């Protein structure tokens, strides 16, 4: 019991003097705790996140392209197979979005500036009508783009990219390529 009071005093003294000592030494919280300074501003997304955002943007474009093609061909013989391919792209988009976890307050979730222009070109044009040849070109570009990107992401995401690229390649053949 006689030892307790001196220990308490020591603890209280430490709690009071440590910040003062740090301040006197010119230290900030980020020097004491490793990692980024939580007060330094919005965190930048990791490279994997940036890549995933670009791939999601490209897949959104692909879905938009197919929707245009399907709406222009509903009731025709090619409308049904196109709807099936659109359904698979919608599944791709859902899987890709499920992998994207961006913390609240993080920097812009816009696509990476390095996104392949070939992958996004079809939707930029936003044509009123989409030909089979345009779809084939978009599928081929998407497969190439995904394979290019998978080297730089973690293994599970790389496998998802590779699987989607393989699906796109089968679509090229289904579209007569």
């Amino acid at each position: 019991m006689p030892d307790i009071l001196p220990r308490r005093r020591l603890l209280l003294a430490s709690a009071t003097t440590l910040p003062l000592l740090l301040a006197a030494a010119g230290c900030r919280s980020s020097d004491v705790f490793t990692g980024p300074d939580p007060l330094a501003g919005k965190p930048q997304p990791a490279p994997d996140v940036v890549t995933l955002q670009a791939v999601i943007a490209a897949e959104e474009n692909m879905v938009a392209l197919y929707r245009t093609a399907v709406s222009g061909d509903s009731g025709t013989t090619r409308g049904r197979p196109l709807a099936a391919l659109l359904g698979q792209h919608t599944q791709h988009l859902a899987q890709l979005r499920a992998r994207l976890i961006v913390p609240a307050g993080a920097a812009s979730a816009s696509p990476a500036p390095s996104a392949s222009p070939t992958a996004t070109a079809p939707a930029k044009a936003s044509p009123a009508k989409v030909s089979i040849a345009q779809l084939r070109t978009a599928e081929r570009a998407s497969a190439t783009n995904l394979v290019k990107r998978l080297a730089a992401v973690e293994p599970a995401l790389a496998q998802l990219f590779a699987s989607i690229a393989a699906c796109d390649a089968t679509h090229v053949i289904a579209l007569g390529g």
Partner: protein
Amino acid sequence: MTKLGTTGAIGAVAALQAALAAEQAAVFGYGVAGAHLSGSRRSAAGQYWTGHNEARDALAAMISKLGASPVAAQAFYQLPFVVHDATSAMALAAYLEDGVTRAYLGIVAVASARLRTFGAQAMQGPAARAAYWRGSTEAFPGLAADT
């Protein structure tokens, strides 16, 4: 293939050996399937059989180059179901191509960027052939159905 979402980088040699084993199984299986096919399907099976032989040799060479011994083919493979007509033969061909697709997807999980790209490109052929035999495309070739 390692389960998606739980994997870290896996060994290059192990992934290549798995792909080699899948190619060897395909070579054997196409021999069985081809015997029940005719016309354009039989000729497709013959063409694909040749392709699997070439892929097998290429993989064996890659494995040797990495200093390992390529796995040997088995003398006989247990078929997943009885093959007695064209329908079951096409189902077997699709099954074999799915197995090869999965095996190449396993290579995409290795650390080497060059091998990842190789695996991703190599799986597109079997995915397309599986779609040919099945008569339809799949959203996620090589991945588990619950992806």
